[in-house]
């Protein structure tokens, strides 16, 4: 059954896939830092959604949708309109290219992310394992 993006169940599915990915665990073995992903409204999506993903040393301690952005304070926040996120999840926009072209806007230490480009790609690889339903 398809899981809608963005949603609490979707980010929980991503967390579970990361914990099952040997490639992610290896590429993010030294990574420390949780993320908040902010999905901003655009023509295809009217709401603003906040997805929290806990990431530490190649494992994910969980993920959930937040009701308000400051419900959890995270080291990194990435925000973009829904349509841009959809491109990332579908593999049409490389996340590092998205950050470099500022289609994805980052709050946090870019240098740390640049040291783990493969981990970013492995996360995207895991999103593609989720049967995702996109509104709009």
């Amino acid at each position, binding site marked *: 059954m398809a899981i809608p993006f963005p949603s609490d169940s979707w980010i929980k599915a991503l967390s579970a896939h990361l914990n099952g990915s*040997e490639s992610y665990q290896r590429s993010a073995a030294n990574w420390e830092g949780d993320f908040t992903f902010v999905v901003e409204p655009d023509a295809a999506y009217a709401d603003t959604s906040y997805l929290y993903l806990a990431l530490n040393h190649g494992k994910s301690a969980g993920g959930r949708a937040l009701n308000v952005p400051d419900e959890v304070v995270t080291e990194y926040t990435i925000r973009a309109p829904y349509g841009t996120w959809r491109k990332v999840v579908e593999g049409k926009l490389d996340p590092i290219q998205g950050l470099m072209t500022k289609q994805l806007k980052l709050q946090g230490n870019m240098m740390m992310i640049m040291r783990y480009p493969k981990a970013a790609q492995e996360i995207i690889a895991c999103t593609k394992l989720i049967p995702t339903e996109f509104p709009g």
Partner: protein
Amino acid sequence: MWYFTSPQIIFGEGALSALDDLKGHRALIVTDGTLVNLGLVAVVTAHLDRARIAYAVFDRVEPDPSLDTVRAGSAVAHNYQPDWIVGLGGGSAMDAAKAIWVTYEHPELDPAEINPITELGLRRKARLITIPTTSGTGAEVTWAIVLTDTASGRKLGLGNRENVADIAIVDPSLAVGMPRYLTIDTGLDALTHAIEGYTCTWHTDLTDGICLQATRLVLEYLPRVAVDGKDLEARERMHNAATLAGLGFGNALASMAHATGHAIGARFHVPHGRAVGMMLPYTIEYIAAEAPERFADVGTTIGLEAGTPHASARALADHLRSFSRGLGQATSVAEMGISWTDYEAALEQLVDDAFNDASIMTAARARVPGHHPPRRPDRGPSLGRASQSCLRACLHRRQRAGGTLYARHSGWARADQCRSTRARQPSDADDRPRGRHERAFCG
């Protein structure tokens, strides 16, 4: 959405004379002591004299320049207050010049913090000229900066599109004195830039033609200049090829040969161009097993067609090995003089270093979204395992009785074969050439 970034490029014999008309007051030349001793700095300062521009020289740039070197150079700049920074030398000097320029303009910024997304607002104090004295790095036209953090021993990939040079002066007369080994090492670096710029997943319509032309030029002119360093036509075409390749990969990205070459180079102190040039055919074979088309294009461009894309890609890899061998270059880890024992001991770290290198993410067989969908875990090896097997391919060159060559007939081993043979030491039984039926690709 993407960008194409380039300085104004003044190229060809006599290009240095453009300095005669430079407007400004003070220039800081960032270079190394060798170029001072060779008289190349004096060649540049003679032009600055004609332009009535005062200058100071910071000649403490070492190979693989450190953060501390950049901090020292930045302090010199703060004292001297130049309105031009001139990076003169190979990639190390030009990368150091870029970082010194950025931190001169932004004293609050540590060089390790130069990144692609911060808006720097450069050119308020100075502008940058890059002048290459080797034909390979392409740093004169790229915005990337590679510095070494001596505390951790890691090379840091830094840079921002704003820190690309204002003017690149590509004058082949500065490369004429390069020794043969440096000519070949840097030439293979340019070749690897060109081919990886074309075949990486970040390639674009704006970089494709540049990369193919650079490939043609290197394959035609590097052998000539390796035989006769005074062949001025060949020197000029190689100098142009290196800049073209820099434009190509600098606006796309490098790929797996750079990721693995960086790891081997850093661990075993192999010159950059030699390491990436050695790895290039192996990574072509590995990636082309799943995504051969772009490599087949390169093969077609240079007249290699073998019927199918897979066969053409493999012909390209074979051709590049023959090309390197013809130049007297090592085509395996063993030929670089690295012992089996040392390589085996370093392997896990090499894999981790390659795995965390930014260049690996553009390999077309490395789960790059948008081009080749990720494999499901139950349908093939993970990237981690694939990378391991890629690096282990070199480990599997069996040493022949003569002790100087590793037979390459074993080709690529499957990941499970790599694992099963990893604990073994080379033996006489392993020395036999292997037939094609034993040649297998990972996955």
